[in-house]
């Protein structure tokens, strides 16, 4: 059997969280539980006579994302019409960008190597279809709430060669998008959508395979990895049989844990692109782009460097508190409050936040610090006191002790929990005391 490798290019769609739509004033509300067709107007419904007016903020944000990803920003750009018929596309064309995208190139570095970006462009999202039964009839309903939401498309070069690399790339990209502050990039809500284009070749070959399979409907990193692994095995089996996988679009089926064929593309689609005559071409001066550059918020990397320098945090602590821009903001507010109040250090705050993320992060900085100090007091528990409680816990949980001694070491965490229920102190301290007691 030959040795094979994956060749993956990724298309990522990100909905921007602007106040209004891409080409109209409708509210851009990406929550899932709203009534259908409440945010619509002549423009996003594609009524006769309606005209698109581009959202300046969406354009600026796309450029900022490009700058954050090392893209070259086009000094002249334009919108184009991409034609196809589908009931969720009311004009019969989508306003997108064809040959002059806002951003060209760029990259994301992974531990497996650099993933180059091909381009980043801006377009409008479509409506959504709901297939259901109404009064006993099978119907397809169209909801135009999403129609006209600003949508950024990021396209990579085929530089990804494993599911692990794909996930690392996606997580980094996700973090960059979040930290530029332009999208919630919530995959469950569909505000970030992943479409890997997967092919497989014999390892060592440098040529692009003559086919690719696009996988849609992926709403988590985990499923992206699963879909890539599934496809890899499927393609390898076919290639080993001397067959070439069919060029097609497949969908990830969560229940079957498999991809299923959706649509076989017969040749290239003809979208009859032409420049959108309703929107004049866009021109950006160097000053304009530089000004946008200065507006990009601190990246996760920059933050980590600052935390290490200013707050003396460890790298691991940085990873823990820089999960999302919101969480790192909470962290910084609490650090300020902590140093103001007492000798609580940034490192203390980081540890507490990381350990008790869910219960503490929602408190105000003042409440948090008060609670932190209060609970820290209990650290003044004596070793005797601790050992007394440990002994009683071991006595009451004889079976767990036996399990532990017979090699089932994970059971120790159960015992740690029992101790902590009585004594709110540092887990590490309980653990080491418990181990000592169990050995003796």
């Amino acid at each position: 059997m030959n040795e094979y490798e994956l060749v993956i290019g990724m298309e990522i769609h990100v909905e921007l969280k602007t106040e209004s739509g891409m080409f109209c004033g409708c509210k851009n509300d990406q929550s899932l539980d709203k009534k259908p067709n409440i945010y619509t107007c002549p423009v996003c419904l594609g009524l006769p006579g309606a005209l698109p007016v581009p959202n300046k903020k969406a354009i600026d944000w796309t450029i900022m994302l490009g700058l954050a990803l090392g893209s070259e920003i086009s000094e002249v750009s334009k919108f184009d019409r991409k034609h196809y018929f589908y009931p969720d596309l009311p004009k019969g064309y989508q306003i997108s960008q064809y040959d002059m995208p806002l951003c060209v190139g760029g990259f994301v570095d992974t531990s497996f190597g650099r993933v180059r970006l091909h381009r980043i462009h801006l377009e409008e999202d479509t409506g959504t279809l709901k297939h259901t039964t109404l009064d006993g009839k099978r119907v397809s309903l169209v909801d135009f709430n999403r129609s006209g939401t600003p949508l950024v498309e990021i396209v990579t070069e085929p530089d990804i060669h494993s599911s692990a690399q794909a996930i690392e790339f996606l997580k980094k990209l996700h973090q960059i998008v979040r930290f530029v502050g332009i999208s919630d990039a919530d995959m469950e809500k569909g505000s970030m959508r992943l479409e890997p284009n997967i092919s497989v070749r014999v390892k060592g070959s440098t040529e692009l395979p003559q086919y690719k399979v696009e996988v849609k409907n992926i709403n988590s990193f985990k499923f992206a990895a699963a879909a890539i692994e599934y496809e890899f095995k499927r393609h390898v089996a076919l290639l080993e049989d001397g067959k070439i996988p069919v060029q097609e679009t497949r969908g990830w089926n969560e229940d079957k844990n498999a991809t299923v064929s959706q649509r076989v593309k017969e040749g290239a689609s003809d979208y009859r692109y032409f420049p959108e005559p309703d929107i004049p071409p866009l021109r950006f001066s160097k000053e304009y782009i530089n000004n946008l550059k200065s507006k990009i918020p601190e990246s996760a990397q920059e933050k980590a460097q600052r935390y290490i320098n200013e707050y003396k945090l460890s790298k691991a602590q940085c990873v823990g508190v820089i999960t999302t821009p919101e969480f790192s903001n909470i962290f910084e507010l609490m650090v300020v409050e902590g140093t103001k109040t007492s000798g609580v250090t940034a490192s203390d705050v980081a540890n507490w936040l990381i350990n008790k993320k869910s219960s503490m992060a929602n408190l105000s900085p003042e409440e948090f610090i008060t609670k932190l100090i209060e609970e820290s007091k209990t650290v003044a528990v004596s070793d005797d006191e601790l050992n007394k409680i440990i002994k009683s816990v071991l006595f009451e949980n004889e079976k767990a002790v036996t399990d532990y001694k017979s090699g089932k070491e994970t059971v120790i965490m159960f015992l740690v929990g029992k101790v902590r229920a009585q004594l709110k102190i540092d887990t590490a301290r309980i653990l080491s005391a418990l181990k000592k007691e169990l050995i003796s």
Partner: protein
Amino acid sequence: MNKNLLDLSILELSERLKTKSISSVELVTESYQRMEASEPIIHAAITIRDKKEALGKAKNADETRKTDSHPLHGIPYVVKDAYLTKGMRTTAASKILDNYIPPYNATVIDRLEKCGAILIGKMNMDAWGHGASTENTDYPVTKNPWDTTRSAGGSGGGPAAAVALRYVPFAIGEDTGGSIRFPASWCGITALKVTYGRVSRYGAIAYASSLDSVGPTAKTTEDCAVVLEAIAGIDPYDATSSPHPVDKYVQGIKVSIKGKRIAFPLEYYKEGLDPEIKTAIIKAREQFVSLGAIVEDVFMPLLEFGVPVYYILAPSETSSNLGRYDGVRYGGTRELFTKETRRRILTGTYALSSGYYDAYYKKAQKARSVFIQNYTEILSKYDAILSPVTTISATKFGELLDDPVTNMMMDVYNVTVNIVGVPSLALPCGFTQKGLPIGMQIIGNMYGEKTLVSLGASYQAVTDWHKKIPRGENS
């Protein structure tokens, strides 16, 4: 009792309304009397507003009029049925939209409404603007008020016939390749194709977005200037509308044209042009000279390429713009597109297809740049270009419908104006021996509408072609 109030100019009517010597109710009543008398034969309108409703508006205008009310306050008007009117059926003369009631107003309608003008009808056209005779309408064909066996021109034959018959003091037309100027010339009235971006296109059913323009048609240049001043200006709903300041166009009427330089392109007056039209425009040239203007012969050799370039750009854009009428959301299915519209959709779809795009659409866009260069060069030396509007005067019905190529060539003098985006004023300059109106056009610089108003008004001050009124219902 018909007082012929509608023969007066807009400014005269406004003056009389303000001094209360007449009322809007009288004006609107006269409009309906004229429509009732002529419409059974002429078919200028597709939809006429309920008379009681219009009279209600007129009564309200009379009650709210102040001395500083806008000159259009209480003045009735009509629009080509390409403009969306909230609550009033809008068809673009196609059965596909036969029962389409828009939920919003076009910007031009909103602006006129704000001035107090009273919309009384939606006028006939070639469906979607596709044609030059109004014969491609899905409704009864508009007749030429000067000879009802002949076409009123197109695509806006309805608004032109309505103004010629003095249903109303003015109408709003839509010009993509001559659709305001062409029927105005065949019907003997004045019309202004504005600079691209001068008037908002929001709410105008798109034919070819990069060529479409919204403008007035009326009895005189002065009336067109009054309306233009009301409708011009940037619109946040149209990204192609221009922030260029809006002039006091009406003041242009009194500006002398002494020393104004007019170009006379020799290629425009060669074979293909009806000698009667040529003679009439040469006479007008002499009148401009006697008014103090300087008219010089120039060469503009690109004329013949205008129609081929237009018939790539316009169908391409229309094939895209009409994609939404797929039979899902609007009543009628695609089978209801006329032959002419199908021809244009097919041509445009072909021109935009991959593999053909570079050879057709892209090449046409390049040609567009060449036209812009050519016009810019001439208009940097001259204030205006004097051109015919049509090669021949009004044809008999069927003549153009049966001959699509001749139909296309009819707009040879008009299409390059839209391709370049400059403004042009079309106005009557004579009659043929058969008694049919002849028009000419004065093409100006980008945003040079005020100069065109001066030229047109000076000419109309010494001529009376624009005062001739057709017999309409009696012919």
